[in-house]
């Protein structure tokens, strides 16, 4: 089973190639090619996962090319961490393929969409299977390409074009960080292999300053991909893509790649206390920052997008606070419930053809399947007990507390409260109350769309039992078999932590209920009481505007300056030389007055000068 794990990414690649060839086909059954091929990948992934669960690992590598004596290798590796990722990715990918069959119905470029999905799945699976940093980096960029293509799928929309460009460039900034970190590590270790890097970290071959530097550089890559502060702005904009794409890429898989990267390189981070602290702080701040923006957004997908950013912040916080298992655990559960939420949101959008929550309302009765599933997702993400989110979030809080990062702990609690609030604000506004828009012709989505949602709904409920103090810590036992040495045995904070977390989320739900269902509190009480703050939050803390004013304008300004420099200094110098030569030649041509006597005079001058030289130097013969 494990030997054939290299096949897993190839099936989606095949799907990409086949569908690209069939791109002109009008038949929507082309989707089945994609579904089938990712289905095979899923089956294989599950098989691999089961094998790993039994304790088999594999690492196969071959030389890709050589630089001098150093061989750059390519291959594949299966360990507990990436086997888990394989399953998550191929599962979500498979479900999204299925869902898209319904969602993309009637689109002109139907096969192309599935081709892009295939490309993305290929890249993501390849990323997960990579045994070394370089290969990871390559797939890392290809994943970005897939994301770029899918965000820009509606290429004729200027917003989609801008969003695709922004996503690519912003993640590229992070990628460059990863690139620098990777190359620096290479010159320290002499290899891109994880094993060798970890070995030299362990042996203390790398100075601590260099360790911190490389870890931080690599973390910059994770920041870019996972939409952490300050490179988060592309992720909400990425919602311009079709909704299944948002579920696949911008909720469950690609954005989690940053978390995966930090987890995969965990020994490096562990070796540097500073790096871990930075990870934790960035994660914690992002969690609350994005959650605060989520409170005020009006676009259903944007709310979910900020929620994703916030949840990814949680994962980073966990990893930074030595909660390795907690981070991975949350990654897993989040993949399920966030994908579910996005697919449900897609189903809503599919039904009402708008993304503005102000124009929805009262959809509970019309969307009999979507509604409850959305509720499950919302409950799960809010951390209501017994659903998956509760367990993973609890573990994150516990590990943060145990790591002594109390400030971040309370930030996380507040973020949990906010999460619950905005999720239920969304729920109540969309599904309850009176319809606020035109809802004629609203109907439930077809079976190909609801089926994946149901699967995810089930998983969103049960995934939490992978790792609980009550039934057993399967996940942490499983991950402990991997190459990464788990930090100090899973800490279980004081017993009051779950209670605080539950209280925070219930409080959030209650507040949302009071405001948006009951109307007990005026909806705009916050806007009225704190106009300045709410304005800032509504405008996403003006981060985009800030970037625009500084980096974008700055770059453009520099560019304009460069053009002026090019025009006036570089070309000016050339022009100066040219006019100098022209002036000289003008003088020369004035001497050509056509009079033989003048020419003779010049000739005499020339002879005299030559003779002078000969007379003074003694000439050739003397």
């Amino acid at each position: 089973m494990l030997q054939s794990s290299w096949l897993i990414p190839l099936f989606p690649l095949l799907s990409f190639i086949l569908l690209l060839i069939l791109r002109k086909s009008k038949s929507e059954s082309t989707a089945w090619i994609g579904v089938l091929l990712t289905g095979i990948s899923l089956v294989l992934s599950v098989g691999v996962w089961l094998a790993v669960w039994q304790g088999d690992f594999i690492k196969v590598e071959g030389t890709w090319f050589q630089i001098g004596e150093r061989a750059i290798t390519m291959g594949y590796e299966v360990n507990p961490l990436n086997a888990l990722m394989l399953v998550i990715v191929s599962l979500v990918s498979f479900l999204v393929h299925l869902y898209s069959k319904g969602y993309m119905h009637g689109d002109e470029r139907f096969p192309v969409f599935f081709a892009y999905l295939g490309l993305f799945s290929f890249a993501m699976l390849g990323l997960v299977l990579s045994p070394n940093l370089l290969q990871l980096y390559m797939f890392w960029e290809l994943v970005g390409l897939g994301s770029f293509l899918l965000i820009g799928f509606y290429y004729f929309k200027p917003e989609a074009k801008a969003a695709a460009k922004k996503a690519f460039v912003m993640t590229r900034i992070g990628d460059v960080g990863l690139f620098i970190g990777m190359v620096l590590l290479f010159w320290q270790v002499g290899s891109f292999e994880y094993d060798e890097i970890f070995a030299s970290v362990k042996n203390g071959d790398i100075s601590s300053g260099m360790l911190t530097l490389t870890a931080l550089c690599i973390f910059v890559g994770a920041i870019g991909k996972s939409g952490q502060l300050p490179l988060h702005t592309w992720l909400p904009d990425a919602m311009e893509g079709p909704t299944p794409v948002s579920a696949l890429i911008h909720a469950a898989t690609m954005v989690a790649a940053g978390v995966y990267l930090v987890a995969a390189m965990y020994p490096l981070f562990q070796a540097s206390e500073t790096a871990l602290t930075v990870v934790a702080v960035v994660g914690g701040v992002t969690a609350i920052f994005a959650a605060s923006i989520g409170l005020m957004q009006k676009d259903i997908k944007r709310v979910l997008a900020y929620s994703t950013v916030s949840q990814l912040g949680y994962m980073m916080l966990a990893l930074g606070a030595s909660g390795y298992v907690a981070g991975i655990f949350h990654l897993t559960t989040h993949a399920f419930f966030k994908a579910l939420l996005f697919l449900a949101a897609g189903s809503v959008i599919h039904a009402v053809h708008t993304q503005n929550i102000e124009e929805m309302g009262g959809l509970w009765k019309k969307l009999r399947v979507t509604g409850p599933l959305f509720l499950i997702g919302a409950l799960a993400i809010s951390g209501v007990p017994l659903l998956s989110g509760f367990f993973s979030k609890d573990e994150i809080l516990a590990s943060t507390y145990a790591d002594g990062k109390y400030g971040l702990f309370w930030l996380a609690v507040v973020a949990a409260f906010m999460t619950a609030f905005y999720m239920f604000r969304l729920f109540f506004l969309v599904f309850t109350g009176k319809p606020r828009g035109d809802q004629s012709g609203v109907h439930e989505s077809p079976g190909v769309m609801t089926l994946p949602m149901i699967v995810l709904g089930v998983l969103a409920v049960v995934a939490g039992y992978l790792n609980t103090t009550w039934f057993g810590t399967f996940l942490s036992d499983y991950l402990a078999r991997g190459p990464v040495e788990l930090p100090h045995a899973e800490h279980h904070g004081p017993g009051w932590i779950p209670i605080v977390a539950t209280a925070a989320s219930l409080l959030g739900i209650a507040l949302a209920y009071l405001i948006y269902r009951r109307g007990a509190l005026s909806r705009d009480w916050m806007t009225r009481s704190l106009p300045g703050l709410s304005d800032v939050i509504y405008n996403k803390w003006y981060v985009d505007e800030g970037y625009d004013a500084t980096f974008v304008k700055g770059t453009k300004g520099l560019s304009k300056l460069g053009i002026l420099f090019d025009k006036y200094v570089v070309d000016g110098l050339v022009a100066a030389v040219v006019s100098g030569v022209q002036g000289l030649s003008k003088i020369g041509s004035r001497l050509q007055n056509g009079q033989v006597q003048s020419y003779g005079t010049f000739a005499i001058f020339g002879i005299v000068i030559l003779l002078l030289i000969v007379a003074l130097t003694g000439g050739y013969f003397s």
Partner: protein
Amino acid sequence: MSSIPLAAYLMLALILFCIGLFGALTKRNAVIVLISIELMLNAVNINLVAFAKYSINPGLTGQIFSLFTITVAAAEAAVGLAILIALYRNRQTVNVDEMDTMKR
């Protein structure tokens, strides 16, 4: 044996050459310019003849060469004058500084 040193002849030739050159470059009348050139040729001839007498390998070569030079000078004078007359017929002038067709 002559008592006059070689340098004396060479000096005379040099002076005449310089006078001829000056005349050729500064006179405006084309005829005078031609004649100045003849003077320069004459100065050269003096050199040739002088070297025929005062030299390491004495012989008649210098004198014979001066004869050739004189012949060529005569031919040159004839052709030069012919050109001059043709030019005069076209331009009604023999002033050298008005002859600047080379410029165009």
